[in-house]
């Protein structure tokens, strides 16, 4: 048993620093470690045991255990193991050593729990505010349990502006965002330019916080949350929907019926198809090749129609409940889905042939936005970005869920580590998705769609789930709770990690390559910004003040 092996390795090395452990399944490991050795253990796990960093989670567990809780999640991809290293912090001293010096990928996650839960990562290299709006008062942490979900804090200062860092000597500052035609969502990159060369940048995001996690922890119930979860993202919503349901199922040790597993797989792959087709189109649009952009969207349309026929919606399929799915794939839909796949395969083959031969596109994408295997490890990059750098990470194979362990498919990799390799990986993955869906359609047996759950879900259990979204691994962490809702639910979308790799990817290349480099991770800001309650406009030219806007909104 791999989880046991890893635990023994750690116990041998750290002895009493390992307080207790929970091995609920072969592929899950929860270890409670002593606060003083957090940094040491994480370094060992990240460097010596070569685990991949996923995310750090802060939680307010005071009402139940009297402690704050921090979890550092790591994945042992080759061993098919997800591990969480938890530390309890006393209520009156919520501090622990920052692990960013050893695990640079933890940069944002630590700043996030500093902002939202008020746990101080001591020794963080760049402890700037990340998630909370600029005018938010200090010492007010919205994810703490004593803060109601609809609380409007005293002392909110709508006029306070974000303090950007000083640009390096001899560089001009070019604002990329908050609104830019290629982004479609607000995010602000402050680029430092020397001529046309990008020398660095500062990122300010989290402008579309919707407080989904807080809402789930205080208002919604277990079976409401899947519907909220899929609204985290407009492109890969089903991924969050499934990942959440699986996290709860893993915490409560529920096994879903096989037919439900196949249907989840089909819908996830359907979503990957539409997302990859959309992305190839957008990438072409970014480099000015609008014809292929339009053709990709034309080819994608039948995928949306069949999704609508199955679920009633082009997007937001409302697929999962805890323990199963809500929609069946009838024999008629099966036939139609097969036809859609056949047509798509033919048309996509033509597109791939056209793109592969186009020297023009390759000239714009080869050697651009390089993220090599080293950066993948350091920044915890996932998905096509990692696979294009030759790192064969794919949650579908590494941490199998739904029906993936029963299917035959390849993990596509490339070795260019540039935008072109990401194009190639995504184009080929479309064919793998088609292959997966055909196998599901062949093997699906009639049977129940969902478990009949009579009892309340157990309280205080932890669950983790990784789902391979089109952009990379989406990771959900859950602690079950009272009142038919989770105590803590943390979502880590793939863009959360991939975006942290962007500054390194765009450094020392032309401004013209910035958009396609950023585009190549398929950034999803709404996924990344999924939290918190107040949206604020900040910037030099203020036309509406925060208060005026609020008044405007409330008058409706």
């Amino acid at each position, binding site marked *: 048993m791999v989880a046991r092996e890893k635990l023994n390795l750690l116990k041998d090395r750290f002895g009493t620093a390992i307080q207790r452990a929970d091995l609920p399944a072969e592929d899950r490991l929860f270890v409670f470690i002593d606060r003083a050795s957090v940094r040491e253990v994480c370094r060992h796990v990240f460097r010596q045991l070569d685990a991949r960093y996923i995310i750090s989670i802060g939680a307010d567990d005071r009402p139940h255990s009297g402690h704050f809780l921090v979890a550092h999640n790591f994945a042992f991809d080759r061993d098919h193991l997800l591990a969480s290293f938890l530390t309890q912090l006393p209520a009156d001293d919520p501090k622990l050593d920052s692990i960013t010096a050893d695990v640079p990928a933890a940069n944002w996650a630590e700043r996030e729990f500093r902002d939202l839960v008020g746990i101080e990562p001591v020794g963080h290299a760049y402890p700037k505010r990340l998630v909370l709006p600029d005018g938010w008062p200090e010492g007010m942490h919205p994810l703490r349990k004593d803060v109601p979900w609809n609380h409007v804090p005293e002392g909110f200062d709508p006029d306070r502006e974000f303090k950007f860092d000083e640009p390096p000597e001899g560089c001009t500052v070019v604002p990329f965002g908050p609104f830019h035609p290629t982004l479609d969502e607000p995010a602000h990159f402050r680029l430092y330019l020397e001529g046309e060369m990008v020398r660095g940048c500062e990122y300010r995001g989290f402008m579309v916080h919707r407080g989904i996690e807080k809402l789930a922890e205080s208002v919604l119930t277990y079976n409401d949350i899947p519907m909220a979860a899929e609204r985290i993202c407009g492109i890969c919503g089903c991924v969050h929907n499934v990942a959440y349901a699986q996290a709860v199922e893993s915490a409560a040790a529920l096994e879903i019926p096989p037919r439900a597993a196949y249907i989840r797989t089909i819908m996830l792959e359907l979503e990957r198809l539409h997302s990859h087709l959309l992305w190839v189109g957008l990438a072409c649009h970014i480099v000015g090749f609008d*014809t292929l952009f339009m053709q990709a969207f034309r080819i994608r349309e039948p995928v949306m129609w069949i999704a609508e026929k199955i679920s009633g919606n082009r997007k937001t399929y409302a697929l999962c409940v805890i323990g199963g799915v809500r929609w069946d794939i009838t024999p008629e839909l099966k036939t139609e889905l097969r036809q859609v796949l056949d047509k798509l395969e033919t048309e996509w083959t033509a597109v791939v042939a056209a793109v592969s031969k186009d020297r023009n596109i390759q000239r714009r994408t080869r050697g651009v936005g390089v993220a090599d295997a080293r950066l993948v490890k350091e920044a915890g990059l996932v998905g096509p970005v990692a696979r294009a750098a030759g790192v064969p990470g794919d949650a579908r194979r590494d941490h199998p869920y739904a029906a993936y362990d029963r299917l035959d498919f390849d993990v596509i990799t490339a070795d260019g580590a540039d935008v072109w390799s990401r194009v190639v990986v995504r184009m080929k993955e479309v064919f793998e998705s088609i292959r997966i869906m055909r196998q599901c359609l062949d093997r699906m047996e009639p049977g129940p769609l969902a478990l009949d759950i009579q009892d309340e879900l157990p309280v205080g259990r932890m669950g983790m789930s990784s789902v391979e979204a089109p952009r990379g691994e989406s990771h959900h962490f859950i602690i079950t709770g009272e009142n038919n809702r989770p105590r803590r639910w943390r979502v880590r979308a793939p863009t959360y990690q991939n975006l942290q790799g962007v500054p390194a990817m765009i450094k020392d290349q032309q401004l013209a390559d910035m958009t396609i480099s950023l585009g190549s991770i398929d950034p999803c800001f709404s996924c990344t910004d999924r939290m918190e309650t107040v949206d604020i406009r900040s910037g030099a030219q203020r036309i509406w003040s925060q208060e005026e806007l609020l008044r405007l909104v409330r008058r409706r």
Partner: protein
Amino acid sequence: MEVLILILRSFANVVVVLALAPLFEGLLRKVTARIQSRQGPPLLQPYYDLLKLLGKEDIESGESPWMQRFAVHLALATVLTVACLIPLGAPVPLAGAGDIILLVYLLTLAGICTLLAGLAAGSTFSLIGISREMITMIALEPLFAITLIIGAVNTGTFRLETVLDGSVYAGGGVPWSGLLMLAVMLLSFQAFVQRVPFDIAEAETEIMEGPLIEYSGPKLAVFKYAQMVRLVIYSSLFVALFIPWGSHLVFPIGWLLFWAKVLVLVLLVTLVAATHARYRIDQALRYYGGLVGVSFVALVLAGFGY
């Protein structure tokens, strides 16, 4: 009386160009749409767009509003002046008023107007846009000038109506220099009319239309109009220089033939624009550099009478 006719003929050229430019633009959009499996906007959409923009509020949003207004109007005025100096299916109206040197200067001025417009707007993105535009101009302007000079060398005159009449082929024997320039101009034509893959200075997805970023309403309409006219003017120049045959036929036939040739050229531009991705400025510059090199070879050949 003669002066009156001259004025009327110049006026006719201006009107024809102003009337046809949006139509060509509309055609370009429609054909692009069909290539992209889209329905596309109505053929007359550019006319509606211009009317709509002209009817909007004139917002002053740049650094120097006065300069901005001046720059866009100068841009349109310049290309319309050029329209009076080139044959549009009929003899050159203002043939006596200038020579090819003036033409070269006016074409450069049209480019400078873009720089001025971007500079007056003063936004970061427009400044990046004009720096790209400037690089493009420096690389490209010699090409047209060399073509005209080759024509002048071949015919021994700077007169507009002589040079703008297939003069590049007027050397003795096989017109090597002319054919070389034909190839060079065909390969660089997208850049002259600022279309993909050489719309680098505007690049919507990178620098948000560059020099145009601060323009809206009537100013944008004038600027856009100037760009549409630019497409027609450059296409006409190309036709006059490189495919002159048939332009001297009796009035409706020669005239129609001329515009048919322009139309074919516009369709070619559309096709190339719809099947290419945008180049980066350094890649484009290397490409232009090669063309400039070839055009100097052509100039030397012309000097030796080829």
